[in-house]
């Protein structure tokens, strides 16, 4: 597989016979099997000693062709595949797809189903942020927060398991509402989970936020200004970390998010430390939303009137939601048939990953690892 691209002209190709030690710069391969690339991402780094001169991301190792599969499944059958996109935040993917198809069908989801969806999506955001926290801090060297984060995440997975029968790829929602009602003891268990996690977030802060090594490793690293974010299409905690107060749940409210009041944390300098603080604050806000949603859970039906064999009228819709990684969008085109004509997933990780080169140029190798962590990418979503 010859790389016919100028970037790969490492020394071997330019002057065969001379080893990589003779050249002034070092082309090293980080990934696809590497401890800190959060999945099968291969980054080809051009180093001058420790400084990064340039990098090229090679992705596609986890490409399963989800969008092609969508064209060969019926609308309801494609729902479980959507969980496999960002497998850490499966519930949010499911919510996005269901909302898109419901918009196509112009169907109104009952209030109770909307509240249940909000509770589960926010719990999933918490779980996703905990996975991010664990792996991000592990890449920078502290091994312990990973285990604390996963211990807290276990409670959330327990709720998912009891509610929809699976921990990770939940397939929790159906087009038109929710399939299961809240199992008895659901409210208490969710409240207990929230009460358990709030002091734990403070404990992460105690262990990491104050730590001078952490502050030195993250302050001023991987800076991305607000305008760069907008130009590159970077959304989610990355954008908020850069000081832009924009969240799809507030800008384009969906699934009755406007019933809850929560605020959007923003950073100032747009560096790794600000994004870290933004995500921690987001976890607290999610808990606030969950508490309001659980208290206000209305009675009522769970499913809207949706025919068994869905045949949405021909047309196209773009529905986006605030996934833990950023703005997750579904551009769905229907030709009136039982199968989607085209499902395009707007993957936040894929678009955020584009900013890696801009954030890391000129920094050190250790910062590449820190920036990949702060991007919070999941390769299932990058490669689709």
């Amino acid at each position, binding site marked *: *597989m010859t790389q016919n691209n100028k970037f790969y002209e490492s020394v071997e190709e330019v002057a065969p016979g001379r080893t990589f030690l003779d050249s002034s710069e070092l082309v090293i391969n980080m990934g696809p099997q590497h401890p800190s690339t959060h999945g099968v991402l291969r980054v080809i780094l051009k180093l001058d000693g420790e400084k990064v001169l340039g990098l090229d991301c090679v992705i596609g190792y986890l490409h399963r062709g989800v969008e092609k599969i969508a064209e060969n499944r019926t609308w309801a059958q494609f729902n479980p595949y959507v969980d496999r996109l960002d497998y850490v935040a499966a519930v949010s993917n499911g919510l996005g797809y269901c909302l898109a198809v419901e918009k196509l069908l112009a169907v109104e989801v009952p209030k109770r189903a909307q509240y249940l969806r909000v509770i589960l999506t926010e719990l999933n955001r918490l779980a996703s942020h905990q996975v991010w926290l664990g792996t991000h801090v592990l890449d920078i060297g502290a091994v312990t927060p990973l285990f604390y984060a996963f211990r807290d995440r276990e409670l959330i997975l327990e709720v998912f398991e009891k509610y929809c029968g699976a921990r990770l790829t939940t397939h929790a929602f159906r087009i038109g509402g929710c399939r299961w009602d809240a199992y008895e003891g659901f409210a208490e268990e969710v409240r207990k989970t929230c009460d358990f996690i709030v002091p734990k977030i403070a404990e992460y802060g105690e262990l990491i936020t104050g730590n001078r090594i952490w502050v030195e490793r993250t302050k001023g690293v991987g800076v991305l200004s607000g305008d760069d974010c907008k130009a590159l*299409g970077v959304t989610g905690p990355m954008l908020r970390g850069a000081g832009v107060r924009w969240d799809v749940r507030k800008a384009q409210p969906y699934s009755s998010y406007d019933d809850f009041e929560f605020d959007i944390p923003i950073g100032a300098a747009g560096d790794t430390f600000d994004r870290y603080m933004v995500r921690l604050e987001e976890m607290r806000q999610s808990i606030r939303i969950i508490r309001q949603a659980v208290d206000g859970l209305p009675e009522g039906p769970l499913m809207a009137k949706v025919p068994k064999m869905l045949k949405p009228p021909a047309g196209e819709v773009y529905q986006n939601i605030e996934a833990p990684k950023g703005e997750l969008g579904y551009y769905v085109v229907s030709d009136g*048939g039982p199968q989607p004509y*085209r499902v*395009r997933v*707007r993957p936040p990780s894929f678009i955020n990953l584009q900013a890696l080169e801009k954030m890391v140029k000129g920094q050190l190798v250790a910062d590449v690892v820190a920036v990949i962590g702060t991007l919070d990418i999941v390769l299932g979503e990058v*490669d689709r």
Partner: protein
Amino acid sequence: MADAPEEKKLEQTETKPETSSAPGAPEAASAAPATALAPAAPAAAAPALPTPPAPKPAAKPWECELTQRLKHVYGSGLRDAAEYVGQKYIAVDGSIAHEVLRILHDDEGYDMLSDLTCVHWPKDERPFEVVWILYCFAKNTYVRVKARYAEGEEAPTATNLWPGANWMEREVFDMFGLRFAGHPDLRRILLPEDWQGHPLRKDYDIRQQDNEWVRKNLGIESGQ
């Protein structure tokens, strides 16, 4: 796990109702069903439902100051400006797509290219419909710009307006084979460099890559 395509072909031909779009505009976005024709589909789909289903959402023409200006400037170039289920979109001619994007980016303040993708309509003589989804932070509004390109034609790149379009255009090239003029580094992004064919085309056949691989590596004709 790729699914055998012939079963899909059978599915696709027999059920795809070709709702003819507004008479006279041949390449109007066939996705936007004509408002005038009496919609036949919903009645047949749910005969047993006692209550008639919600009125089938239809594309209402979208008139505003921006569309006037565009119509005034480009006349027939602006194919269609409509709003479907509350989402505004304009379909433009391929050649003027870049100017429209530039106007939207500079004057209208659409500072984020949320998404750029392509839909393949094999029946059309301009099969590739490129869709730009733009977002304006100030006005908190989304707008979709659609343009159609023929087989060998090159779409204009949006990387000079929004650098974020870089990888998205590479992916459209990788999946559909639609080249983008002026793209700094147009090569495959998800599939290996020497992959044969473009998967997301409707007429894509997975066996074509297998045969190629077998021929290249084993030197024999694939038995499939």
